[in-house]
């Protein structure tokens, strides 16, 4: 079992899900309340990582952050380094890859908040900002929680994107799933089994906790339904 790969993976997953919360909350709110005609295009783009093969996504991200692309050159000019084959590059790729798993449940939860409550909030003088934090967010918390947990779990288990962007550098870009792949390649099934079992357990516990909480809420444990 590689503790290094494990801590790196956890660090990546925590960081990515936090970043996705920062992106997912405003984006989910916008998707929930916007009446723009072209909203469906944004929805399609957000959903793209679900259907796209990870290698395809990884390939384009790699090209986009590579030293020849504008993004890569810009990043180099600022930091003097490169995103490709680094932990930061991995974060960028994972954020894109897990985006729908954060945004979709959040947007669904926010749009299920009764519109009249938003109208009532406005007639009581509240700004959109206040309406969001006092009404939409608290009522949408189950969806926000789902988005956080799903993007966390999804980042834990990703393989193709990580391989394309990060390669396989222990301590920098070698995540658990790639480490397992390595063990299998070198026919060390026992180590692979340990790590795979651990990952299975972690994901299962996370989902059990999530669905347990949602059930509780339905039964009124959160007090307002």
């Amino acid at each position, binding site marked *: 079992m590689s503790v290094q790969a494990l801590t790196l993976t956890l660090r990546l997953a925590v960081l990515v899900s936090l970043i996705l919360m920062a992106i997912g909350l405003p984006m989910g709110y916008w998707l929930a309340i916007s009446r723009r005609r072209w909203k469906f295009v944004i929805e399609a783009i957000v959903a793209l990582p679900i259907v796209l093969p990870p290698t395809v996504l990884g390939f384009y991200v790699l090209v986009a952050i590579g030293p020849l692309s504008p993004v890569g050159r810009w990043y180099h000019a600022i930091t003097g380094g490169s995103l490709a084959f680094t932990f930061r590059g991995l974060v960028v790729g994972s954020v894109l890859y897990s985006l729908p798993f954060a945004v979709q449940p959040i947007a669904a939860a926010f749009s299920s908040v009764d519109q009249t*409550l938003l*109208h009532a*909030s406005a*007639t*009581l*003088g509240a700004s959109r900002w206040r309406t969001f934090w006092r009404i939409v967010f608290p*009522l949408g918390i189950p969806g926000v929680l789902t988005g956080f947990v799903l993007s966390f779990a999804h980042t834990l288990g990703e393989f193709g994107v990580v391989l394309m962007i990060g390669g396989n550098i222990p301590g920098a870009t070698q995540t658990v799933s790639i480490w397992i792949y390595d063990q299998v390649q070198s026919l060390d099934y026992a180590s692979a089994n340990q790590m795979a079992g651990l990952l299975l357990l972690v994901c299962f516990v996370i989902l059990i906790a999530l669905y347990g909480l949602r059930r509780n809420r339905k039964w009124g444990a959160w007090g*307002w339904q």
Partner: protein
Amino acid sequence: MGRMGVAVNGALPVNSSAGLHVEIRKRLADPSDSSREFALAAQFSIAAGFTILFGASGAGKTTILDCIAGLQRPDAGQISANEQVLFSSKQGVDVPTRKRQVGYLFQTLALFPHLTVRHNIEYGLAQVGRDERERRSQEIAGSFGISGLLDRRPAAISGGERQRVALARALVTRPKALLLDEPMSALDASTKSRIVDDLRVWNERHAVPVLYVTHQREEVYALGDRVLVLERGRLVADGAPHEVLGRPQLESIAQLAGMENVFECLVRSTRPDQGTMTCVIADSNVPLEVPLYRVDAAHPIKVGIRAGDILVATSQPRELSARNVIAGSILSLRQQDVTVIAEVDCGARFLVRLTPGACRSLALEAGKPIWLVLKTYSCHVLQ
């Protein structure tokens, strides 16, 4: 009465005093056929006190409220409250909802389910200092009798209490006008009247124009000082409830006002000296004497009669002042709440409302021959 803006179809009198001034034009989808549109074109002013906006569903009542609150945008027009322009297509003004200071009580009340009663009430007082906020929420909770509920959530209180909380929440912000969208349709009459009494007491001190939307005629009589009748986007009547609903001259008002019998009639003769005219119910030869009304004799008119205004006799009545005595027979009797509705065939079908006691003492039953007695002035000629 100090009432302004009787303008139904004409121009609004220029009036810049306090109150709510509304002039809205907006195209709306037809509720019965969404591919068709009809035009909402309403113009009225209301002063402090209760004004009822009355009309069938789909007439555009809620749209008017939404436009006043800024939740919908008129195609054109002008809305102002207490001399502040909230919307003006000419001046290009469209104040956002949150800055309009218009209280709105939604049909569903829209209490915030995750906040306590206290936090619901204080929601609109974010700009007010803490002490002042507490003082005002205590005061309004006292006025509406909900001081004991402040720490409960909306799910844990009764429907009438939720109503009071929603009113308190809207009024604690001291709005320039209060809009109520059929808020009490789910409440029983006594709960409703107690809440309305509290609202009246509150409003005697604060003198806010209250626009109350409903399609229930009992509420019109019970609540309104003045009623505006909206029909397919247009105001067709304006006045005190008993004037508008007591002497309906429009079929739509007749139905809203509870005219169970509306007949198409042909005028046979007029008697200007008596103030009456005689007509015959179309497709029958039942004559009716009705009040004289300036009509084109070639065209059929509509006559509305309340089921409760018709008398029933089991032998032919004589020496009566009532001019209409019509023979017929009972088709059916059915109980409706505490009254009995009789369907009577006289050549035309009449609905008659009776008390169960009258029904028993006359031994009424289906097939029994009877006479209907109608005063001339119980027959309302509709435009």
